[in-house]
């Protein structure tokens, strides 16, 4: 599948790197910054077992291009359609069967922060800056960001951040569990190396099965999640037993 114009794609080992590309601030022209099909095509690559999302240049993303967003409000049907597509895309990122890591430098605001929160982990440069500034324009985060933020920080802190539109630094993001890890090094290199180490030696099917089990644990009822886990285990055990038998012949 051809790479869309607003992103840069490359492979580093068994990890794919997807950079939001609209320099210098990497504004997002539409709520779904890539198509679902394009995201899926990355997940389906046989040699790819992890994904790092980052930004071109000094910033992750400063969020939505406000002019575009206000233009969209002239057509309420189109606005709704595009916001739904954005929401679905982020849900697609969150439920990917390979680990997805946001490598954050510079600003990570609004829609940019929504993308980062949809990833499974967030690593940030110590100089990164975060905010949900929507309230300053009489708006609010609309792609699941409030839900995902409050899941990590608790609802009190999430409310404070969303209602104030406050810009907060990497240190605070780390303290509030918004960011899993801080680094003084180049955060993209750091993230790529971390993710390669995490999945490098494992067959893709094992990675995908474990990721599916993690999603199930949060999305399904206890009984169903347990049942699905055993089913995933049995599939792997069946295949591995067969492989070993073949190996012995």
């Amino acid at each position, binding site marked *: 599948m051809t790479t869309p114009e607003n992103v840069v794609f490359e492979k580093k080992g068994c990890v794919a790197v997807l950079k939001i590309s609209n320099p210098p601030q990497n504004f997002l022209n539409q709520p779904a910054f890539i198509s679902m099909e394009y995201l899926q095509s990355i997940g389906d690559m046989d040699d790819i077992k992890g994904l790092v999302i980052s930004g071109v240049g000094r910033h992750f993303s400063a969020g939505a291009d406000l002019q575009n967003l206000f233009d969209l409000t002239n057509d309420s049907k189109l606005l709704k359609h595009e916001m739904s597509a954005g929401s679905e895309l982020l849900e697609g990122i969150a439920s990917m069967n390979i680990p997805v890591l946001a490598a954050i430098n510079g600003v990570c605001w609004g829609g940019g922060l929504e993308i980062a929160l949809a990833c499974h982990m967030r690593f940030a440069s110590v100089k990164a800056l975060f905010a949900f500034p929507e309230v300053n324009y009489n708006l609010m985060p609309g792609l699941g960001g409030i839900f995902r933020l409050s899941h990590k920080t608790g609802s009190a802190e999430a409310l404070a951040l969303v209602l104030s539109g406050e810009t907060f630094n990497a240190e605070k993001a780390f303290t509030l569990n918004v960011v899993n890890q801080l680094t003084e090094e180049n955060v993209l290199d750091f993230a790529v190396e971390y993710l390669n180490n995490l999945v490098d030696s494992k067959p893709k099917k*094992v990675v995908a099965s*474990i990721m599916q089990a993690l999603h199930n644990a949060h999305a399904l009822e206890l009984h169903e*999640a347990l049942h699905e886990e055993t089913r995933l*285990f049995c599939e792997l*055990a*069946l295949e591995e037993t067969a492989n070993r038998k073949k190996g012995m012949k």
Partner: protein
Amino acid sequence: MFKTIDWHIENEIGFIHLNQPPANSMSKLFFYEIRELADTILNNKAVRAIIITGKGRHFSSGADISDLLSFDSNYPQQAADFYIANSQTFKRFYTAHIPVIAAIKGVCIGSAMELAMACHFRIATENIIMGFPEAGFNLMPGCGGTVYLAALLDEKDMMELLLTGKNLNAPEALNMGIVDEVVGKNELIEKAVTFAKNIVNNYNPAHREFYIKTYLKKPVDG
């Protein structure tokens, strides 16, 4: 009488000792016996708390990897039914209305860690080794491990544990929230019993954090 498990009831507490020396590995027989014991002990109204531990130096080394890798491909449904039943046995402890406490020492890996995670509380000695080595054999936990872990950890810690198969020592497990308190080797059972006695009245699993803070953690000076 079971071949792989010792158990008794004392002062309203049911004690389950995994007993398959040297490391109390979980054979097929163990899974059949623990299934039967879960029935017996959870249906006994006189039992008001359960403590699960291992005989000797270890909690348990988990299922035999050779068993897991001899999945009977001629009868895949029978094999699957066996694992589903095992998962349900562990779930019975998880959903029990009385406190279930794992007293962990030495090795506690793979399915043994799944059993420990199905318990409501985990008290450990300083010499534990915990982890999920399954991915190293191109497998994954299949007895509820991922599900119980997800209730406690963030995605980064979970992926690291499950994908790398890395081992945790006592401070790491405590720091991650996998074990609730670390105690001296000789006081493990005593602490577990005292803790059980403190929480049996009107036990409510939703108060987990409160019980740990109030009755398990060492008081901090100052």
